[in-house]
């Protein structure tokens, strides 16, 4: 870790934090069976990526807007993804009366 004149260089804590958040999200995706719980894990992973983008943007990039624009795109895409995914969850629940991924094995319901 580099120490500069104006104090501790703070990029690394943010990177480790983002990594931890990403791993928690991945753990949620892998360990859960409920479709909505898997979606929660995906959201955590997307937010970990956002944190990384803003950390690098804040500490290394001369143009302050680049990382923020990328994060706005991530938020927009996440909104689209959640809208589609929740519609699929509702549809699956209506047809199968369950949103447990272990019970969703058929290609044609």
């Amino acid at each position, binding site marked *: *870790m*580099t120490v*500069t004149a104006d104090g501790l*260089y*703070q*990029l*690394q*804590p*943010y*990177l*480790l*934090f983002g*990594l*931890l*958040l990403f*791993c*928690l*999200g*991945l*753990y949620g995706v*892998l*360990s*859960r*069976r*409920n479709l*909505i*719980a898997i979606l*929660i894990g995906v*959201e*955590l992973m997307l*937010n970990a990526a*956002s*944190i990384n983008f*803003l950390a690098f943007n*804040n500490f*290394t990039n*001369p143009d*302050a*807007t*680049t990382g923020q*624009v990328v*994060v*706005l*795109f991530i*938020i*927009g895409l996440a*909104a*689209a993804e*959640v*809208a589609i995914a*929740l*519609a*699929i*969850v*509702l*549809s699956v*629940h*209506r*047809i199968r*009366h369950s949103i447990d991924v272990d019970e969703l094995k058929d290609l044609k319901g």
Partner: protein
Amino acid sequence: MAVATGLLMALTLAGAVLAVSLRNILHAVFGLAISLLGIAGLFFALNAPFVGAMEVLIYVGGISVAMIFVVMLSSVVGKHAEESSRRKLLAALIVAPLFAGLALIITGTELGDPPAYVRGNSPEAIGEALLDHYNLAFEALSVVLLIAIVGAIVIARHNPSDTPPGESDV
């Protein structure tokens, strides 16, 4: 500043742990909301107040609430069984090496000195960047959102012929 940032990180991680571990799926969504609020605070700490505000509006105010709606509509609250410990162990075995490897890379990398730039992070600057340099991506994203809205309506629309024969509509 460092103390506030550390507290926000702890809050976010605590919410994330709740979100991936709680059995009741409604409580897990609340954990996600706590985590997202912490992340919005970190965005403020990272010199991006506009993005932090958008995070609160869209994630906490929109996405979390939509998830709560779907949890209640699909009536799975409390009905979900505990995940098997074998599945949890397998997931941990996949995630732990990834975390260890990437953490070693992050801590082992020598990062250069931070630049001493004067930052312009106003909404005006972001708006100019969006409509100037990133205009194509911006317009593409609006098309994606439009298609997602229409697609979500089409998928979620109630269609009686979807119901298997012999079962009544819910």
